């Protein structure tokens, strides 16, 4: 569904991604793994068109991203950032940022999909890190994306909160949502992902099923 074709990104004279080709198939969770500085987050930003490749193409349903209306594209490709970014004062207002017409019932349904049991009028300032991150997940789901981009979604959380977020992601993928998961946590990548793309210093060094990945095995 999403794919990179010979993508190179040069920023400030440094080659962040070097002729990278990779596919992120529909209905599967693909992990992008590799050491820090490998270009994982840059790759994710390309998929949401928050960044343009220096050369090469990024495809969505076999069509290059610039051929889509960018606002429509970003609704179909959701992004959850590394540390939770809460945008509004209450849970309901936050869920409505991308979809102002969201009804309270729909909002409650989204929260339950994200495994979050809080009142809609709850102040977002009182949420714990893990709750805030699940709110961000629910907010991304509110606009009805076909695929979720997850940028180290648990790295800013403690172990318990991270587990809760992981359970939600795993349930969403089991429900058929496609996901691209950037993670430097190899065990997490093994637990959540069907496939893996391993980057090192901007180049793809391994692709294939997560269960057979030599790189991910290093985790055990």
């Amino acid at each position, binding site marked *: 569904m999403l794919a990179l074709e010979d993508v190179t990104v040069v920023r*400030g004279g440094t080659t962040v991604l070097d002729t990278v080709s990779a596919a992120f198939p529909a209905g599967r969770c693909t992990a992008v793994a590799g050491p820090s500085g490998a270009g994982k987050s840059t790759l994710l930003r390309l998929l*949401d*068109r*928050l*960044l*343009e490749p220096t050369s090469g193409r990024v495809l969505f349903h076999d069509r290059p991203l*610039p051929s889509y209306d*960018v*606002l*429509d594209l*970003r*609704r179909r490709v*959701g*992004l959850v*950032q590394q*540390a939770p*970014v809460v*945008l509004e004062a209450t849970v309901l207002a936050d869920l409505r*940022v*991308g*979809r102002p017409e969201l009804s309270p019932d729909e909002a409650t349904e989204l929260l339950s999909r994200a495994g979050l049991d809080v009142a809609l009028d709850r102040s977002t300032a009182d949420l714990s890190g893990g709750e805030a991150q699940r709110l*961000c997940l629910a*907010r*991304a789901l*509110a*606009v009805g994306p076909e695929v979720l981009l997850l940028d180290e979604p648990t790295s800013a959380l403690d172990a318990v909160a991270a587990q809760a977020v992981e359970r939600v992601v795993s349930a969403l993928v089991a429900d058929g949502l496609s996901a691209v998961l950037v993670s430097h946590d190899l065990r997490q990548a093994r637990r959540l992902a069907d496939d893996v793309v391993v980057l090192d210093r901007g180049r793809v060094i391994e692709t294939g099923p997560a269960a057979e990945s030599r790189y991910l095995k290093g985790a055990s």
Partner: protein
Amino acid sequence: MNPAVPSWWGVGASVLLVALTVALVVREQLGLTREVLVACARAIVQLVVVGALLGVLFDSAGLPGALAWVVAMVVVGGGVAGRRGAGVPGAQGIATIAIAAGTAVTLGLLVAAQVIDDHPRVLVPVGGMVVSAATRGTSVALLRMAEEAVTGRRQVEARLALGLPGAAAFAPHRRSALRAALVTDVDAVRTVGLISLPGAMTGLLLAGVDPLTAIRYQVVVMWMILAAVTVAAGVAGRLAVARLFDSAQRLLATDGS
């Protein structure tokens, strides 16, 4: 001659105040002696030149001369506010347009409604107040917009990722910049007369005008300043947002990264 206006001899005597300032600066070893002396000397030269120019302007340049003076002030203000908001692409042009808009709307309304005379003796000083208010508002608005583009990047990108266009994704940050631009002048209006007597009123009182007449002028000046700040900062904010995003609705890097 108006008894409230000091004679040249009096101005000379007031140099004693500069001497007092310098004496304190030297005694406290502030290292500002040279700066104080240069600033005072510059101020005298600038004011003498401006006074002479205004004399010519009032006597013989007429309305075109007064408007040219106001335009020159707008250009200078645009330069000042543009440097302040250097983090916003095209800040210089944005600032000049914003200040011109704030000035044109405010002065235009006052003249059209015949609140003030279109004589150079009125237009130039009133225009000066309007331009400096518009410059202040634009400076703060652009400075804050540039800061928000850096510190608010994560929030802005979170909104962009939900499919919001750049202007909508930046709207909360633009509002916060505008609030910052307005709040000083709203506070000034709230406390007017309590903490200090404003400049225009002070000038009229010194010139011997009855206090209840002087406040009429001050009231107009306050509304005028509020309008100039609001229009200029508002225009600056809108124009700046347009320059902060590219055609793919991406927040441009403004901090050199």
